[in-house]
């Protein structure tokens, strides 16, 4: 394994070894506190442009499942068609995996997909640095290639445009109620949850004007990056809301786009919420849920239009975790009810959405 150095934009350095694809790389360094689920996280398009730090030290334990695609075009085990994170940063990589469903090691997969992975990093210290400073850009440099410095930007890049589908894809045709899914970087499990509930999905590019299509409900998917880069999508949502009261549901980026359509402002969190243990409370109730999250931006709940209200709030920092319209069946969550990876306590969001399609 070659020696590498992770250099953060504030100059902090961490020394480690390369276990993935041997190439220098740059990106926004973010940490995730989940203790399992690396195949799901790596293939989550929301990590596009980011170097993913796992705070749990042991990674690679159960190898990687086969990258098979089901008949309905949805991957069996992965969350999209490839790895979207630009690098993986861990403390103690395990090459000798053990699992009945694994076909290769994490390293083999990273190499195959040309994604760098580094190990031997004090990821707790790194996390503390990111927590104190806020997320930063970082570079992985190979010690024996001192002149090969990679560059990248995160802010100001429209990552949604990079990861969204370029064409319309249909799933479960003729199954029942029809839902337009705005693909900002959708995770496969959102598709699975809808397909399992006998929904026909029309997956459209993020900036596609679907308002003239025939459908029963609108689903705004998750996606990477800054929602302020996606004003086209917001405009189309506004147009849709002005035309009809058809149900709308959103997740993560979907929540942010819906909130923007509702007049709210978005701000960047210091270091985001990424993990499986984020507590949220349904506003006005004693109902609390442990949720899976992955977002760097949040809705400023105080700036929502008068017809809107907060649906969920984060119990740790009070940030917005979902919104709803006071009259129409329009609601969304900042967290990920589709989980994968993470706890599945909020699957009911899909049920609620499907109920409103009647």
């Amino acid at each position, binding site marked *: 394994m070659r020696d590498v150095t992770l250099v953060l934009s504030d100059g902090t350095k961490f020394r480690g070894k390369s276990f993935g694809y041997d190439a220098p790389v740059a990106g926004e360094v973010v940490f995730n506190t989940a203790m399992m689920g690396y195949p799901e996280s790596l293939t989550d398009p929301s990590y596009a442009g980011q170097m993913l730090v796992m705070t749990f030290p*042991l990674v690679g*334990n159960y190898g990687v499942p086969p990258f098979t695609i089901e008949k309905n075009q949805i991957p069996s085990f992965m969350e999209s068609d490839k790895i979207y994170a630009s690098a993986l940063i861990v403390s103690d990589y395990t090459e000798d995996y053990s699992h009945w469903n694994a076909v290769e090691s994490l390293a083999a997969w990273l190499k195959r997909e040309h994604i760098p992975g580094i190990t031997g990093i004090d990821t707790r210290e790194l996390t503390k640095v990111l927590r104190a400073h806020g997320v930063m850009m970082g570079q992985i440099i190979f010690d024996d290639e001192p002149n090969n410095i990679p560059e990248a930007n995160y802010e100001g890049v429209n990552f949604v445009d990079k990861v969204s589908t370029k064409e319309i894809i249909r799933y479960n045709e003729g199954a029942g109620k029809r839902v337009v899914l705005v693909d900002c970087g959708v995770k496969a499990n959102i598709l699975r949850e809808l397909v399992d509930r006998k929904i026909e999905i029309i997956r459209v590019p993020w900036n596609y004007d679907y308002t003239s299509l025939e459908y029963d409900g609108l689903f705004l998917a998750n996606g990477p990056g800054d929602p302020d880069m996606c004003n086209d999508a917001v405009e189309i949502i506004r147009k849709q809301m002005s035309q009809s009261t058809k149900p709308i549901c959103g997740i993560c980026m979907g929540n942010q786009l819906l909130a923007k359509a509702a007049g709210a402002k978005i701000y960047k969190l210091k270091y985001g919420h990424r993990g499986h243990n984020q507590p949220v*409370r349904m506003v006005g109730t004693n109902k*609390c849920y442990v949720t899976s999250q992955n977002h760097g931006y949040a809705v400023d709940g105080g700036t929502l239009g008068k017809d809107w209200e907060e649906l969920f709030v984060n119990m740790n920092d009070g940030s917005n975790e979902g919104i709803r319209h006071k009259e129409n069946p329009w609601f969304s969550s900042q967290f990920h009810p589709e989980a*994968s990876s993470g706890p599945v*306590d909020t699957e009911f969001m899909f049920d609620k959405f499907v109920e409103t399609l009647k």
Partner: protein
Amino acid sequence: MKDESIKKVLLLGSGALKIGEAGEFDYSGSQALKALREEGVSTVLINPNIATVQTSEGVADQIYYLPVQPYFVERVIQKEKPDGILLAFGGQTALNCGVELDRLGILEKYNVKVLGTPVSAIMNTEDRELFVQQLDEIDIKTIKSEACEKIEDARKAAAELGYPVIIRAAYALGGLGSGFADNEEELNKLCEKAFAFSPQVLVEKSLKGWKEIEYEVVRDQYDNCITVCNMENFDPLGIHTGESIVIAPSQTLTNSEYHKLRKLAIKIVRHIGIVGECNVQYAFDPKSEDYRVIEVNARLSRSSALASKATGYPLAFVAAKLGMGYGLFELKNSVTKTTSAFFEPALDYVVCKIPRWDLSKFRGVDKELGSSMKSVGEVMAIGRNFEEAIQKGLRMIGQGMHGFVENKELEIANIDAALREPTDKRIFVISKAMHKGYTIDQIHELTKIDHWFLHKLKHIIDIDEELKRHNINTLGKDLLRTAKVYGFTDFQIARAVGLEAETANMHKAMLLVRQLRKGYGILPVVKQIDTLAAEYPAQTNYLYVTYAGVNSDITFSNDRKSVIVLGSGAYRIGSSVEFDWCGVQALETIRKQGYRSIMINYNPETVSTDYDMCDRLYFDELTFERVMDIIDMETPHGVIVSTGGQIPNNLAVHLDAQNVNILGTKAKDIDNAEDRAKFSAMLNEIGVNQPEWRALTSMDDIAEFVDRVGFPVLVRPSYVLSGAAMNVCSNPDELERFLKLAANVSEDHPVVVSKFIENAKEIEMDAVARDGEIMAYAISEHIEFAGVHSGDATIQFPPQKLYVETVRRVKRISRQIAKALHINGPFNIQFMARDNDILVIECNLRASRSFPFVSKVLKLNLIDLATKVMLNIPVEKPNKNLFDLDYVGIKASQFSFNRLQKADPVLGVDMSSTGEVGCLGDDTSTALLKSMLSVGHRIPEKNILLSTGGAKQKAEMLDAAKMLKAHGYNIFATGGTSKFLEENGIANTLVYWPSDEGKQPQALDLLHDKKIDMVVNIPKDLSPRELTNGYKIRRASIDLNVPLLTNSRLASAFITAFCNVKLDDIDIKAWGEY
């Protein structure tokens, strides 16, 4: 919202520590009481375990040292009139008692509300049939199990399920009376035993080889649920989870598997209606996502204590608050203090729990591990990788191991068999097998341990092999760092690079590696356990030390205003909760005196490892190396080595050599007491007698010595913990056989042989001295004669039957010794007395096992006093005299022979009890009765079986036998005893020994037919016992759950007590009322 109608709450404790129910419940109970106190609720505690922290001043408002049994609980309820009762914090003992109280209508009668999980929900988890029915209702798979109330039904069920099957007793703690049966013969044996403990036996299909996974779930009354932690067993299903190495969080589960089981756990907990904490155990197929629910514990458990320590989430504290009516969202995360208690901890480390067994203490015990628990304690190791955690853990269990490698070579006749049939040594057999070239696949085939764990272990072997290719001069920085990151100690490295041979002294060799390592700048860092993987800032003082990191989370003030207290490590026979109490008291005094308190300990069952007991908690090793690392970083004012039992005591000399400021008695003096030769020379100098002894260097020397003093003799190594490897030898054969074993125990110190004195009284002196002058003391007296280990003996305090002259001499000698050893702090001296002839057996310059007992009876905290002395704070001599007490304290021992299959349940010089209780009474008989009932004895109904040993014991028991007769008991007696009783005019029924085949009635038949309510069986001599008649009867009593007494003096005292004191006459007084 808090239920404001609850003003006073009764909490049931778990009683004496026993296998399957140990210190974890002191921790749970203490946390619950703390939570209630915070709410301004008045608390009443029933727990006879006097050595616990929860039964100390200021934890509960009223403390009753009484048996946790419906009769006594009802009387306390009558008196105290509590509004609510907590049943989930005292293990199976409290839960069973609570279910019984409910069944008897007592709770309803006195209008006492069960807080937290309702009794009906508890029943649904405890009764197997109801449990399966409940889970069937929500389509959750359980292990197919047949509840049988007759042995014929069990046979039928097993035939239907197909062998192998597992047999479990319902309503039993820690898998008591359970096991695997491969055929009907084995099933018959197991069932008989199981039916002795429980009216219901469960027959299940065995799923050997499946993974075992647990989840700890919390639910509030608003139906909000979280899983605080999941855990995976290193050992696959088939080995009781208390016997398994456990790792948290799970390591081999994918996201889908983890969350599938998590979702099911929450579904179960909601359906059953738990309010508070609950544990769900699964069997999980290693080749698919198939699962079975093994069981659900509707209470705090050993696993929940472990989960609390593993995550930093205070489960018991939160469960108590939920019992008071709060929702999880109303509580704060007690680590971050800012975020919500409704969350699931994210770990950024792994923890490894390893059980501690003491099987070598028991003669004849079955060493194979299985579905019933035998371990007496456990350790938890924290690391940033698995290798580090497990190597730390293997050192922590304190059985002379240095990690996974570089241990003394194990002698294993058949490695395959030793891998296939797990024993307490299996992990080391794996190490040996790997060194011998066994492949991971081979080992997996034999053990069914997941490949992942085996690969990690193999990694340690690989590093070790790499180290072995080097010597100290060629050992490079990178390899050295790698070794440290993966949990190698300087000791292991020194041995691997061959320094042992070079220096001929491992301590020196280790110091050389330490020096080299420091020269390279390879130093450990300190990390925090913060429940959120550093996501939020946390002012947590819960720490561990690792080499897998570049920076410490904390800073060190170097103001010399902190004091380190070394903890007592894993609970084991001879060292358990009493030292935890001592450590906690020391921490409190240190804080009160304006120092910052720092604890180093690694036992997840303890209160001392609760992070709010001290200013900094290092949940880490008590090796010289790790303690020095921490001292180097913390630069404390000093270190206390005298409140944690023998482990810290043994470190004194080495720490002193590094110029560490040891508070209290000087290391040199500690050595002078520990080293028998030095100690003896000192006693001779001051003219104090001790039993004649001699250091053994050759067999000839010893023969000459024994010729002179005569048999029996006591043989032991010089550094002793609870009589490890100590034995009484009655003839030359035994002596020779034993010495061959014991000579291997310690090479640095000679083995000593001493004259064993029979029929002598044993007396304990627990005291605190300042600059060699005794400040306070407690003299207590054993009920049994010398020969029963002081940890097993029944102790009365204040002494009831000592001559005034004896007491005077004991005091005088103690003063002399304290002066000669310049004692500054706690100490304990054991004496033997025959008439007024006083001999010193041993002296420990540290707190002893009996400190909490005498402190609480005397109502004078000896550790508080000792700590002040050690901190050099002026103290007055307390104005307390043990002879002014108008009540008696009796400390009785709890044995766990029912768990230790085949072990001979007899007492000797080697300690075998796992716990103790201490009860107070207005007179000796009342106190004794309370204590004996607390450790599982029962007042017999009518039939008593006597076999009273040799002539002397027979005579000793005569009065007791007369008394039994006078009180209408039927006496059954074996040959000699029957004749002796007959001769003395005591009518009895003669019964036959097992060897008298064909003659009727057979003693064993009577036992099996449940005709006997109590057995007194006193062995004739002290020699090792074969599978004799006596053994068979003793073992049958244990297996059939009939109370057994094996000591004539204790048996007499107990019989006197229950003949003279009626249950209803027993006083129900709180500690404060004496």
